């Protein structure tokens, strides 16, 4: 029997102490479309980066045609015929389509004449082969997202790649474009390529894939042929059989409506017609796929994206914050998703990070009072049990979970009425996760309204009093707390809810 096209064995990879992959095995044969499924943060993206050589694994081996390597570089991956179509196309925005394709496909030697005519012709051929009507002479930054994706696919097709990774290629494509893409994928398969296909849309997987592997928490849950499984079973594999941990008890009963949103529109970030209420003392979970608009909704509420229509009422007062400072003044706090870039400033000490949003309150006349600051930050360090060498330690020296707690502490210090938490436990170890969950509950019991954005299904189900599911920039459904995970996942995917099975 011929060796598999690509075989990964025991691939492990950690980022800053967080284990993103814990020994994953994965096999891809030629002439196969192999779907990769998993929740956000299950390790799919990391696995792809290892395959394309963008990142080197800490352990494990990669075999191509039976030849084992420990890791790949982008150049090697390229030479071995591995290509990837990223969610965010890695194209050069200032250059033309023909040039983008040329840069990918032509050798990297500097002293080589460029045959522009041939380049254009090849680009035109490749684009027409995948059924895209894009002018090879247009600059990539002028193209829409799906068009850019098609350019990426054209590159891959042109490279004659044998291993093609497609990371949610249909996420922003129209029906027709999808059909075109599927035809291209089937064509590639019939030519003997192996395709790793990542998608959240289960119907696509059943329409297109031969096999499917499910990842959860950085491990492979299992591989199976698509004909041997069904949607309900896949959803259960993705979310796990049961809630893996105990969540704190919900409060007795939430109070009055504290935040009420009516027909909110923020077109610059794709938010349309969102309406819901959050009561004081309530934890309102926001679930949905990546790109469904959860973070964008938070940005609109926090003054980071302009609201153009609808009303936001907080404690009976209609507000429309134009910047974060105004939102903070209204009692809104936002713990952002991207901790490193937005949540903390790593180079600055813990104490300074904690007080960053309350300068005006604790420093009258703007004069620093270091002792007061230190006292306040220690209070939060104790309260949230932040493990650090001291309040003066640079925030970046803390572990991921403790960095997150610093970010939360900054916003608790503002004494908010509405606390928005965006993926508060992503990349956080289990101990810190439990502590953060307990903290959220105790905050809610103090009368704060909590908006909890999370891609971790058990978390959003275990923590929330009600769950809003977002899809395509709007709030699609509101489910009661403690709903079944498959029901929430189905709502996020836009599927009819699967029948609950006993056990």
């Amino acid at each position, binding site marked *: 029997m011929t060796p598999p096209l690509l075989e990964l064995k025991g691939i492990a990879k950690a980022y800053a102490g967080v284990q993103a992959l814990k020994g994953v095995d994965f096999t891809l044969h030629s002439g196969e479309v192999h779907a990769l499924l998993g929740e956000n943060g299950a390790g799919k993206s990391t696995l792809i980066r290892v395959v394309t050589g963008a990142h080197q*694994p800490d352990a494990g081996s990669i075999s191509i045609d039976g030849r084992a390597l420990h890791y790949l570089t982008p150049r090697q991956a390229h030479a071995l015929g591995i290509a990837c179509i990223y969610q965010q196309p890695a194209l050069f925005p200032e250059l033309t389509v023909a040039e983008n394709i040329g840069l990918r496909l032509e050798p990297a030697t500097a002293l080589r004449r460029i045959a522009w005519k041939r380049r254009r012709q090849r680009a035109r051929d490749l684009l027409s082969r995948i059924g895209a009507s894009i002018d090879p002479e247009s600059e990539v930054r002028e193209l829409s997202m799906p068009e850019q994706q098609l350019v990426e696919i054209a590159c891959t097709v042109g490279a004659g790649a044998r291993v093609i990774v497609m990371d949610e290629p249909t996420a922003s494509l129209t029906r027709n474009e999808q059909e075109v893409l599927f035809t291209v994928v089937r064509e590639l398969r019939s030519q003997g390529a192996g395709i790793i296909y990542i998608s959240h849309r289960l119907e696509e997987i059943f329409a297109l894939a031969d096999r499917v592997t499910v990842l959860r928490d950085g491990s492979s849950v299992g591989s199976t042929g698509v004909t041997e499984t069904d949607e309900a079973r896949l959803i259960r594999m993705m979310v796990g059989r049961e809630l893996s941990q105990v969540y704190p008890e919900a409060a007795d009963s939430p109070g009055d409506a504290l935040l009420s949103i009516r027909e909110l529109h923020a077109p610059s970030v794709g938010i349309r017609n969102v309406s819901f209420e959050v009561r004081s003392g309530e934890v309102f979970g926001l679930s949905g796929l990546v790109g469904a608009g959860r973070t964008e909704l938070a940005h609109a509420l926090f003054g980071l994206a302009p609201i153009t229509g609808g009303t936001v009422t907080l404690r009976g007062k209609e507000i429309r914050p134009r910047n974060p400072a105004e939102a903070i003044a209204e009692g809104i706090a936002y713990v952002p998703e991207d901790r490193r*870039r937005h949540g903390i400033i790593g180079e*600055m000490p813990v104490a300074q990070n904690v007080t960053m949003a309350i300068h005006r309150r604790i420093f009258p006349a703007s004069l620093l009072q270091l002792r007061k600051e230190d006292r306040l930050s220690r209070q939060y360090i104790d309260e949230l049990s932040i493990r650090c060498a001291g309040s003066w330690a*640079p925030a*970046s020296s803390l572990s991921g979970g403790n960095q997150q707690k610093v970010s939360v502490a900054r916003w608790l210090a503002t004494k908010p009425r509405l606390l928005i938490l965006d993926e508060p436990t992503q990349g956080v170890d289990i101990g810190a996760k439990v502590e953060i969950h307990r903290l959220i509950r105790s905050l809610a019991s103090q009368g704060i309204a909590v908006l909890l954005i999370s891609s971790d299904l058990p978390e959003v189900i275990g923590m929330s009093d009600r769950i809003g599911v977002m899809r395509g920039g709007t709030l699609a459904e509101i489910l009661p707390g403690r709903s079944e995970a498959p029901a929430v996942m189905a709502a996020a995917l836009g599927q009819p809810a699967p029948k609950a099975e006993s056990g």
Partner: protein
Amino acid sequence: MPTSSKSLAPQRLPATYRTEVVLLVVVLLEWLYFNSVGPRFASLENSYDILRHSAEIGLIALVMTPIILTGGIDLSLGSLLGLCAILFGKLWRDAGLPLPLAGVATLAIGALAGAFNATLITRLRLPPLIVTLGTYSLFRGLAEAITHGVDTFTNFPASFLALGQGRWLGLPAQAPAFLAVIVGIWILVHATAHGRAIRAIGFSAEGARFAGIPVSRYTTLVYSLAGIVTALAAILYTARLGQAKADAGTGYELFAITAVVLGGTSIFGGVGTVHGTLLGVAAIAILNNGLVHARLPREAAGVLTGALLLLALSGAMVPKMVERLRAHRRTRTASPPTPGSPAPP
């Protein structure tokens, strides 16, 4: 950036202070050396001379510090000094304003010029480097256009010249203004929440925005402040030399930036101190003055300054390079490429 991947062991002396300690030693060594070769060097008179001659570059270096702390840069300040000097002269001689009024008007012009830079940077989100490169040309060009390239303003009254040449309580007359700006900028950067915000912007403008810090407003503040203080430097310059010319302050921005970077301020923003900048100014000023006393060519000071700047920059990168090499070696020893596989580049 220092201390990112260090252990949690207590470290009382942040990395930035270490630069300043080294610089302090350099300044002391300079002092001792020139003292040994030039008998007149250590006299009080000469110290005052050094202060007089470094006040204007010192002022510009001081206000350049918060700008660089935000991760920006201002190349137009030397040109602005020239423009302010001749506008000051013009307002006094040709418009007939009394000197104090002309001085106030000049400060206002400086502030406006700084705000102009800031507006282009914040509104159009253009890189400060290229904006101030444009105004570098524009301000100097306006100064030349107004004076037709030849006109100079002289015959200032003695009471005004005393501001640049006289004594005040036995100290050079520049001392009070210089000292006031030092104290003001030091407090702004080190003792107020504004300084904190400026640093936060320098480390991560996005991170600062998410914490509710008004990034545009602070950018406008630091560039406008630089304009005002540069106008002050222009007045002191005019008083010291007794004349205002269009080429006043040529190249000052370069020496100011050198002093700031030498003083341990990171060109990437966030890290740096005002006293570091002062030490940087002192190191350059003493070098300039001392070489004359040591009967060495003055130009050696420029070469040494430039070399010092490059060394300081490269030196700051060494820990990063070591870290990168170490990480590289780690991945290699962890997984040596299998024979037959293409070597990593």
